[in-house]
């Protein structure tokens, strides 16, 4: 008995893969190829415009003429420009007041919507309307509501005999500032309310049941369950809301164009006014660049201050 059959000779040698296949097996190459489109898109549509904007801020370019590098001359001028500082003040004031208003009313609305109400879905859909309507449309609506001559609010108050003259909504500085903030709050509430409603619905009912058993008052339940549990989403929503509000343009530009006498210019509207109609591209870019530190600060603040882990978990900070 011998090994009758010789061990079969294994002839199939693993074929050397082609150059193309080897190339695609190369991890480094794959990473580059897969990232390239994304990086290309980002460079073309994000980094290049942003970089160009920052570069323009250091030139004296105008519409129609190439600029030369002038260093920080634009910023030096802005530092002494009361109109710019007024825009900085109003941007911060507008963002602060509108954000507080939006969150107070939005949270309240979210808590109401979180109750069991008849036709809940329909109500929620309706709440979203101000957010869905294009800003320019709502801005035009408010433009009419605030019109010095044809305001529906003035008309109603006069018809009801409550006033003799039209309400001064946007004809003097402070009323104009408050009117714009009111319009911004109206527009911003749905975003806050719906986002917070989503957050509210993730809170486990068992927590509330436990609290009820312990005899917690409604305020205690809100303070010690709802609010801490809502903190993470609150931080994110607030970050977004601050960015949207700080960079708002359409409401202000459509309703007051920054008037009366520049009192309601936001940094975004002032940058546009100086850059495009005024033709001073460099200076407009400088104003826009000046917004960046504020945005970074606001983002960091709301993100780190509000998103502290311990606080979220209901503990005190160290």
């Amino acid at each position: 008995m011998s090994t009758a059959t010789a061990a079969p000779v294994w002839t199939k040698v693993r074929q050397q893969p082609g150059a193309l296949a080897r190339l695609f097996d190369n991890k480094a190459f794959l990473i580059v190829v897969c990232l390239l489109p994304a990086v290309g898109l980002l460079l073309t549509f994000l980094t290049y415009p942003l970089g160009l904007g920052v570069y323009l801020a250091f030139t004296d370019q105008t519409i129609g003429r190439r600029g030369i590098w002038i260093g920080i001359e634009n910023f030096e001028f802005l530092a002494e420009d009361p109109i710019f500082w007024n825009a900085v003040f109003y941007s911060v004031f507008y963002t602060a007041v509108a954000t507080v208003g939006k969150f107070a009313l939005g949270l309240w609305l979210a808590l109401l919507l979180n109750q069991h109400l008849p036709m809940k879905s329909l109500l929620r859909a309706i709440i979203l309307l101000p957010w869905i309507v294009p800003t320019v449309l709502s801005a035009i609506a408010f433009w009419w509501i605030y019109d010095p001559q044809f305001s529906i609010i003035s008309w109603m108050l006069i018809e009801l005999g409550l006033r003799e003259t039209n309400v001064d909504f946007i004809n003097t500085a402070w009323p104009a500032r408050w009117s714009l903030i009111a319009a911004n709050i109206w527009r911003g509430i749905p975003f806050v309310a719906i986002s917070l409603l989503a957050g509210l619905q993730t809170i486990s009912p068992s927590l509330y049941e436990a609290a009820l058993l312990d005899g917690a008052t409604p305020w205690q339940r809100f303070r010690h369950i709802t609010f801490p549990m809502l903190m993470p989403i609150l931080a994110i929503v607030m970050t977004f809301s601050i960015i949207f509000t700080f960079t708002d343009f359409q409401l202000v530009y459509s309703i007051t164009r920054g008037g009366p006498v520049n009192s309601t210019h936001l940094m975004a509207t002032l940058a546009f006014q100086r850059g495009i109609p005024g033709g001073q591209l460099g200076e407009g870019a400088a104003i826009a660049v000046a917004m960046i530190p504020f945005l970074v600060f606001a983002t960091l603040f709301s993100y780190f201050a509000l998103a502290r882990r311990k606080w979220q978990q209901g503990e005190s900070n160290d």
Partner: protein
Amino acid sequence: MAHLITRRTALALGGSALVAGTAGAQIQTQPATPPNLPIERGATLRMLRPVRFVQPDQDVWNANCQRFAQQHGIEVRVDFVGWEDITQQTAVTANTNAGPDIIIGFNAGPHLFAEKIHDMTDVADYLGTKYGGWRPLAQAYGRRQNRWIALPFGASGGPAIWRTSTLREAGFDSVPDDHAGFLRLCQALRRINKPAGFALGNAVGDGNAFAEWLIWSHGGSLTDEQGNVSINSRETINALNYLRELYPTFVQGTLAWGDISNNRAYSAGECHLTQNGVSLYFSMLNDPALRPIAEDTQMTPMPKGLLNAVPNAGLTLNAMVFRHSRFPNAAKALLTYLMEAEQYDPWLQANIGYWSQPLNAYAASATWTRDPKIAVFRDTMNNPFWNGYKGPITEGSVAATADYVLVQMCAAVASGQATPQAAAAEAERRATRYFRRRG
């Protein structure tokens, strides 16, 4: 109707008895030699123009261009673009050295791109000689350092527009031509609760028109003849002090007025005296509900104040031919052709008064006799005032106008936010920035 005009009828009738009356008949011409502009073979021209006020404007314009194209066997294409877009499109065209051969822009447009456009002196001299000379506003916007860089095609002015019955009720036959009288009129209108109103908000057209009237009519100016900022002057302070008395007579809310606000307030009977272009009158005339107001309406120049001319800068159509055009002769010949009586007068008439002629001879056009109310616009281009007056037209004068330097100076005083002295100093600070690099 007007687009029925063809070359044949125009020739056959010797430029008279056209569809819209008697085009060209009254236009006196002087002998002049047209410049020699041999049209390039197979030329194709592209022209950019602001959109029409009225449909016949576009029809006649297109018909004129097509007739020129047929006569010379070339192609002409006209694109009509929105008013806000013209400046940006001109800038892009000039910076990229590509795009339309001809752009009809506004006001200072050609001055911003003077190195990018062809000299028009030969054409302008010919037209000026033939048609009785260019009017002052045309010279202001068409010329740069004693040569022509553009051909102004017309201007639209902003006179005072008022209700005849209201003025009569207040004891006035018309708007007085002096400051004291004008103030008395506005105070009287306030007393009978049918107030005047002038835009003091960020309104490019109306806001600037009123602020410029106020400053110029008191002898003030943004810059002096050399282009140095001269706004912080005694004349300006006087004007602003006058405004402090005038503003309380206005209808409520003019600090927030945009370009459309006074049209609305006037049409609604909330305001009985304002300053506006001819569009307000025509919009009321064409609306059956507002027709009675249109019939009660009269338009007269704003008060001259201390000056001998009407302090109003008409919005001017200003044509330029770009150096990147491969067919400069054809382009210049086309513009010349459009300014000749056979083409220009029907176009002027088609515009029923929206545009007013830059050449003296066209003052005889039938446009100005059809409706006596629009006769006030006939001499719009006789007013030697432009945005940035009295200095040369530069980037700075354009920017200062677009950034509402004068308007906001006036509004700051009217609202009580600043004293006249402080407001004038602030305007000087802003203007100095814009004029810091004078061309």
